[in-house]
């Protein structure tokens, strides 16, 4: 079984995240970059399957700037067998459609039985790339899985939408995404960190993947940002210390605001 885990580098949600007002793109230099936590959980799903199924190969794959190297190295240190980094200046400012095209091409070149991604990133939060990749590859997808059961020829799980929970399955090869209901990722240990340095790490340009951007992206609708405006920060209002009547005072505040 060959499992490819898609990882994305995002600005750390513990810090302030900013947009470049000129392009509307995320200002990746303006905040610490980390692997999205949900993608670490996706990797954990693959690694725990590998723990109990010898002969499983786990690949971490990312598209992004040079800085992504750090995140992919962490994936290798956690236990992935190899890494693929899609790096090309033509992908700067890529929307979800371009991203999915590049990732699908990279997946074709690596080969796979199962692709696992996080359900949605903490920056863009679109949650659409896994299903777009599946459509490009002509495969089944199951997104937002809260449980995952991998067997030799199929993958099953449950997913909850706003209205109910579905039990679903798909034959392999398939593309899935998982929610934070799945377990937290393991920490890389010292041995993992040392051995990561010797593992295969492939950097691929669009040309390496057989994509000519002028051809592949021609006529494909692309979303573009017209304008990005920072909202004024919220400011603190009234703050009182309860002296036995704060509940009544709060009721008065809500009445004054026509909220009750």
């Amino acid at each position: 079984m060959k499992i490819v885990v898609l990882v994305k580098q995002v600005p750390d949600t513990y810090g302030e995240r900013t947009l470049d007002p000129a392009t509307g793109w995320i200002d990746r230099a303006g905040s610490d970059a980390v692997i999205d936590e949900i993608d670490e959980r996706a990797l954990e799903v693959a690694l725990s399957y590998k723990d109990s199924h010898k002969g499983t190969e786990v690949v971490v794959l990312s598209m992004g700037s040079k800085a992504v190297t750090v995140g992919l190295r962490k994936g290798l240190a956690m236990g992935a067998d190899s890494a693929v980094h899609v790096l090309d200046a033509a992908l700067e400012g890529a929307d979800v459609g371009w991203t999915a095209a590049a990732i699908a091409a990279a997946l074709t070149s690596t080969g796979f039985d199962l692709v696992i991604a996080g359900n949605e990133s903490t920056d863009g939060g679109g949650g659409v790339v896994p299903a777009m990749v599946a459509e490009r590859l002509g495969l089944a997808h199951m997104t937002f899985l809260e449980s995952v059961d991998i067997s030799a020829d199929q993958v099953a799980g449950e997913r909850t939408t706003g209205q109910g929970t579905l039990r679903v399955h798909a034959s392999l090869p398939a593309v899935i995404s998982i929610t934070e209901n799945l377990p937290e990722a393991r920490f890389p240990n010292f041995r993992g960190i040392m051995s990561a340095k010797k593992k295969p790490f492939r950097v691929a340009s669009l040309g390496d993947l057989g994509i000519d951007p002028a051809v592949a992206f021609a006529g494909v609708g692309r979303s573009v940002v017209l304008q990005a405006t920072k909202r004024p920060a919220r400011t603190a209002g009234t703050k009182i210390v309860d002296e036995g009547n704060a509940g009544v005072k709060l009721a008065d505040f809500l009445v004054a605001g026509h909220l009750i």
Partner: protein
Amino acid sequence: MSNILALIEVSSNGDLRDSTSSLLAAAARIGSPVAVVVTRPGAGSALVERLGNLGAAQVVLAESDQAGTLLVTPQVDALAAAVSTLAPGAILTVNSVEGRDVAARLGVRIGAGLVIDAVNLRSEGLTIVATHSVFGGAYTVESTVQGRPLIVTVREGAIEGPADAAVPVVTTVSLTSDARNSAVIDEVIDLVVTSTRPGLRGATRVVSGGRGLGSPEKFALVDQLADALGAAVGASRAAVDAGFVGQTCQVGQTGVTVSPQLYVALGISGAIQHRAGMQTAKTIVAINKDADAPIFDIADFGIVGDVFTVVPQLIAAIESRGKK
């Protein structure tokens, strides 16, 4: 006016989902709304009149034996077929799990650009412009797509309906999807709805509880205040992780984003990830023992105190006002 396709979500018992009114209202802002509904054969006609009342000028009933057994594939196929016959200016889906799946696959299939999680839509000549609220409302972003049509997923409840009622023109098509490239639905385990409280998404009032509530039993205080205010119940990730309440209640970065008129935070410290899910609320009220909790930095009314004394007093005050 160009046709705007709106994929209507139907619940497993065949009813229109609550998102319908808002989605058709969004379509009406930029063109002539065409409701596309996928049902089992014969089940769609009962929905036509209500779709008209909610603003659908046309209804496409796509009937498929595979509705409810193939995961989103019939919906993608129905929209792809409607795109080729109706040449729409835009295709809208709800920004739900299902709606995003459909938008994603359709975008690739028809080569259309995707605009995700719009909170508003408008036309500027031939261009359709979407507004987004990014990083938990810290930024307002306007975007569009180069080329037509565009596909937009619309945030649930962001655009208020209903649009003007119409008597829709109905087309029925029958549909068979290729099952080979689709996941299969084995079973629908419906959520057991035990309360009459409003749902969290799109709620106008939300009462949320955090780790400060202490236990699942004591979390009942959040329910009590929510019921006194007619509000939905939310929670911080800390409360969800501690098992006080289910994950569907989680407000924040990795949960639900809400923009209610009133947001009441009980025993929530206000970590940046929580604030990302609620800081666009019109009025924020916070009660917390810790005077230094960051939630107070964004609260319009903050009380440093014990939720277990302040909240019962507040509920009593609300109830006595109701009796006057």
